[in-house]
């Protein structure tokens, strides 16, 4: 991890300077504070301080009914909130034993893969900006904007999506959503290819990223890394492949792995994941052609809110509406752990239920929180400018870090 002699604090030969990197430094892309001891431009030691935007989601979740926890999950990894939403819905569905129809699963896969692409666009684009290339970021940003337009067609909002409900979606995908999706599948590969040719063999970019912050597979596993970072270090752990959820077992895709876990490997892994996500979305669209077009939620009236006009005109719907809103539907007293492959790694939900309307305890296993703790130890002996790039490629999202 280090290829430079590291001086200790009490070495009289060296005068160390202290640098407060963050909490609001433009290069850190969020509220991260690291107090670094510098010897010239080399980092001798660092201490990370986190918690600047801690909002006590786990505490709030103990006071909210299940369906009101979805907006909280939005605000964790806000670059790919649909994955968080879906992960939460699937956790509750697992708890309640709800089987979702295949069409719902495929629609969810489409939304989740779009979210993964938009998250990787940010990460890799910003990595380019930090190494001095702004163009790639702008090219890619146009398509992230387009992904947000697709979200808008599906759920009405863009960043904090609150997409889907327990049991399925709140409404069906409309024709515009599908046409935009096809346009995205046509346009985005062109840009992604252009983006790759801008960077992959770019001398400046490769010099800045290759062998920077290389992490061995043992270290990565020891620090419980997951997601693209772990895969860049050479471990092919992907929750989608290992514990398939939402019918991921029906899809054919590859899990890209790197070799030495440096910044360049992480960049390549994320790029390849975007190609794989496009592949998955294409397969999902093909599979959807064989499914009935009017199903967008599971048939679980005791958990899925009925349409409003039925509430006014239909006795049964009114009863269910009342029971759901008042939280009077019995739920099993048990505990469940469910994880999905978030854009940054294994996003887990540990839900302890006591049969009430809200969770007894809900814990989020947040990949950014767990991935970030290696940042200070791995920065030792690194150049300050490399540490900045390393932070971009870790893709730590402050909302997910602090929950």
């Amino acid at each position, binding site marked *: 991890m280090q290829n430079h002699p590291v001086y200790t604090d009490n070495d009289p030969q060296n005068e160390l300077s202290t640098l407060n990197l963050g909490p609001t430094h433009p290069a850190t892309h969020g509220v991260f504070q690291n107090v670094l001891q510098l010897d010239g431009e080399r980092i001798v030691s660092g201490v990370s301080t*986190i*918690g600047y935007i801690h909002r006590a989601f786990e*505490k*709030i979740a103990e006071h909210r009914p299940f369906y009101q926890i979805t907006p909280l999950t939005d605000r964790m990894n806000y670059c790919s909130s649909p994955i968080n939403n879906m992960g939460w819905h699937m956790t509750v569905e697992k708890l309640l034993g709800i089987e979702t129809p295949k069409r719902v699963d495929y629609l969810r896969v489409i939304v989740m893969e779009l979210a993964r692409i938009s998250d990787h666009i940010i990460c890799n684009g910003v990595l380019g900006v930090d190494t001095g290339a702004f163009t790639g970021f702008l090219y890619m940003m146009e398509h992230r904007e387009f992904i947000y337009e697709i979200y808008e067609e599906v759920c009405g909002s863009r960043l904090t999506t609150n997409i889907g409900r327990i049991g399925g979606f709140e409404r069906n995908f409309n024709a515009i959503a599908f046409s935009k999706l096809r346009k995205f599948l046509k346009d985005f590969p062109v840009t992604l290819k252009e983006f790759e040719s801008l960077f992959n063999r770019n001398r400046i970019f490769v010099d800045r990223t290759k062998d920077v912050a290389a992490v061995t597979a043992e270290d990565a596993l020891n620090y*419980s890394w997951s997601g693209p970072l772990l895969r860049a270090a050479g*471990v092919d*752990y992907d929750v989608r492949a290992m514990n398939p959820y939402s019918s991921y077992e029906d899809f054919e895709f590859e899990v890209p792995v790197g070799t030495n876990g440096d910044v360049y490997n992480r960049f390549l892994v994320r790029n390849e994941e975007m190609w794989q996500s496009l592949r998955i979305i294409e397969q999902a669209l093909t599979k959807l052609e064989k499914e009935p077009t009017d199903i967008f939620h599971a048939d679980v009236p005791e958990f899925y809110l009925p349409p409003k006009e039925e509430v006014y005109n239909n006795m049964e719907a009114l009863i269910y509406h009342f029971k759901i809103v008042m939280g009077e539907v019995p739920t099993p007293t048990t505990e469940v752990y469910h994880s999905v492959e978030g854009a940054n790694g294994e996003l887990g939900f540990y839900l302890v239920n006591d049969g009430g309307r809200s969770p007894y305890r809900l*814990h989020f*296993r947040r990949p950014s929180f767990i991935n970030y703790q290696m940042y200070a130890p791995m920065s030792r002996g690194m150049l300050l400018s490399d540490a900045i790039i390393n932070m971009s490629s870790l893709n730590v999202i402050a909302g997910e870090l602090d929950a």
Partner: protein
Amino acid sequence: MGKITNEELLTKISDKFQDQFTVVGEPFGLLTLETSREQIIDILTFLKNDPALQFIYLTDITAVHYPELEKQIGVIYHLHSLVNNVRIRLKVFLVDGDVQIPTATNLWNGANWMERETYDFFGVIFDGHPDLRRILNVDDMTAFPMRREFPLEDPNRVDKKDYFFGR
């Protein structure tokens, strides 16, 4: 499902630790064991280093507070064997007022922040932890906010009275 079943897993652990743990159940196929704080590190070490099991991946450490139980604080470990693709959940219950448990940081570096988070929110003291400080809350906080008795909103606030909201 994984390459080894929960029964095989349980047999392996029983052979080594006969009566030092109890089986809580298998909710949703996830084998859940309860043990004591004296045994937890031995069991974790065994699970991590056993060549057939290889629970090398520490998924999560957290806690749950049950005020009505005699042993109020439950520390929960989630482990994952990537080779066998099987998960296991371990629980240790601690009496309030004596919330000390040995640290798992000697086994996994990743346990560091997970244990700090658990300390921050539940006040569980991890013995031998290299740097047990608060992590998400401010350093001078005195309460452990994820315990059940801690209110969601500050009852002393004067700007959020019910009559402001017509309640």
